[in-house]
């Protein structure tokens, strides 16, 4: 797989200057999504035929606009309008939209564009229009290899999202997770990776050994995870471009709960020995291992703050599972979770202001967020079983997994990925070909 195929933005027609015309507020639950028209990207007959030959897709312009439409709808912030109501042909709309027509169907924003086949490459230009003001807001063109067509749809969505919300998008991203099959007592687990919208699903391991908790390096295409290879639970490093794997560190026992530091240069994880789990870091360049916690209780699930200065983690030193924050050298340990119930899996938001967690209270599991000092706890969703939130790179969406209760015969078990907005709205299942757990969201692949 070619992951780092650069998409060249070679032409910036108009640098987006803010006039503050239409804006989408993403700080609260959006119950009134912005009506937007995604006009199919126009394509000339010659290009259409070329792409049909290469990609086996009828009309690549339509296909790309469908990706944009689904992305926008899934975000919960936009309401893509039905194409049947569009009055203007795609090619003409891209030149100069007749704003009265788009206004008539209540579109507040309009996306138009053009696809062409140029020197064996895919060239896509798109424009975002403010319908009410009758103005162009963004215009960009990309050239890339034809097989990258889905990513072009995601990148366009990211640009539109960024222009209309003022924050970076999360559509040109991927999810790594654990694919699950088989009965609960003999579950087979494989590492799998897919695009954020579920396309291009791929299994990375064969299922011969148990694998758990994969996590992306925020700066590269590396993944760290736990594997029971040869029945020795150890933290591994996997390069998803080359497929090479290696054990992290030389510990005389189980290492688990790995995560990268924000600069991608260290792995932080737990090492369990003699009934005591402590948190360690290992520098991937010089292999220096540092012990961070020192306490006879369980210390696990560490996660760095985005500036690398602090670590949040899970400990039962108070008697039960709670969330703690310390400096990255292990000093100044402070408990921050004080609500009712048990708290686990703390993950620092990429924006730095919040910590997402799993909470168990009175037999129910919750995904929630709190400020980094523990104040302002907000529970987003309640269920029989769910855990392990992972942040979208812009810190606006959480993905996690949820398991169902089995029936009297112990049957009917399933595990699925779900996502929810930080606002607590827009909860939806993320479709995967098999059962799934332990999702981890990548950074934006391009900017």
């Amino acid at each position, binding site marked *: 797989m070619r992951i780092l195929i650069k998409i060249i933005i070679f032409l910036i027609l108009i640098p987006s200057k803010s006039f503050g015309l239409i804006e989408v507020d993403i700080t609260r639950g959006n119950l009134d999504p912005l009506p937007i028209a995604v006009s199919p990207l126009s394509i000339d007959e010659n290009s259409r035929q070329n792409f049909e030959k290469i990609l086996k897709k009828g009309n690549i312009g339509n296909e790309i606009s469908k990706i944009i439409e689904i992305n926008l709808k899934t975000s919960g912030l936009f309401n893509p309008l039905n194409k049947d109501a569009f009055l203007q042909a795609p090619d003409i709309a891209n030149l100069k939209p007749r704003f009265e027509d788009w206004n008539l169907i209540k579109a507040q924003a309009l996306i138009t564009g053009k696809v062409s086949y140029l020197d064996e490459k895919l060239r896509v230009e798109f424009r975002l229009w403010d319908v009410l003001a009758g103005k162009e807001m963004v215009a960009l063109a990309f050239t890339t290899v034809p097989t990258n067509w889905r990513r072009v749809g995601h990148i366009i969505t990211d640009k539109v999202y960024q222009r209309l919300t003022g924050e970076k998008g999360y559509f040109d991203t991927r999810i790594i997770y654990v694919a699950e099959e088989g*009965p*609960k*007592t*003999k*579950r087979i687990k494989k590492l799998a990776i897919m695009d954020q919208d579920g396309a291009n699903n791929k299994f990375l391991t064969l299922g011969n050994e*148990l694998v*758990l*908790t994969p996590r992306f390096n925020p700066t590269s295409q590396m993944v760290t995870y*736990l594997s029971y290879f040869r*029945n020795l*639970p150890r933290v591994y490093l996997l390069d998803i471009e080359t497929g090479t794997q290696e054990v992290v560190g030389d510990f005389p*026992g*189980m290492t*688990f*709960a790995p995560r990268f530091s924000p600069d991608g240069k260290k792995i932080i994880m*737990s090492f*369990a020995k*003699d*009934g*005591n*789990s402590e948190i360690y870091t290992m520098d991937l360049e010089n292999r220096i291992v540092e012990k961070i916690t020192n306490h006879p209780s*369980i210390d*696990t*699930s560490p996660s760095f703050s985005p500036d690398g200065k602090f670590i949040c983690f*899970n400990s*039962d030193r108070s008697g*039960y*599972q709670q969330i703690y924050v310390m400096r990255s050298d292990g000093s100044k340990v402070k408990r921050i979770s004080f609500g009712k119930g048990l708290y*686990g*899996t703390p993950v620092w938001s990429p924006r730095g202001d919040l910590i997402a967690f*799993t909470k*168990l209270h009175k*037999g129910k599991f919750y995904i929630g967020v709190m400020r980094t000092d523990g104040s302002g706890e907000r529970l987003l969703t309640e269920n*029989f*079983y769910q*855990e*392990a939130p992972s942040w979208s790179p812009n810190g606006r969406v959480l993905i996690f997994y949820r*398991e169902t*209760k*089995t029936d*009297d015969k*112990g*049957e009917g*078990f399933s595990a699925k990925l779900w996502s929810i907005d930080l606002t607590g709205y827009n909860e939806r299942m993320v479709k995967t070909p098999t059962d799934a757990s*332990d999702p981890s969201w990548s950074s934006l692949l391009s900017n």
Partner: protein
Amino acid sequence: MKLNKILKNTLLIVFACFALSACATSKKTSGQMQGDVYTGTDSVEYLASGVPDRVFFATNESVLTTASRETLRKQAAYLRKNSKITIVLEGHADERGTREYNLALGERRANAAKDYLMTYGISSNRISVLSYGKERPVDSGSNPLAWSKNRRSVTVKAN
């Protein structure tokens, strides 16, 4: 904290009473748990005649019960007689906890069993420890009885 303990004990007693009174009405499941520790023999295998292979734990606990200690003393006696056998202690947790914490908890439970075997004369170099967390339940049920069977440390012969 003290008040909590008292409350907890009261709850355990109430629970035990409930479990006992439930005997009359519901079948089988009752009488297989004390507090929330499994006391039945479902899923239990034997290292040798009269030597059960596993011990069970209360929710979030790694403390050995009286019955667990008795089982482990039998295992220790068996292992002393068969000095060539090496073992793996496999620690497990139920599904009602986060994955990573449960990996640590399984390790802690297996080590509780290991420490006890060592005090009864089994050398630590005959014992290795492996935590499965909540990954390998024996009972796929989503109910307190199934969970109690899954909170366990199992002694497995390694050779």
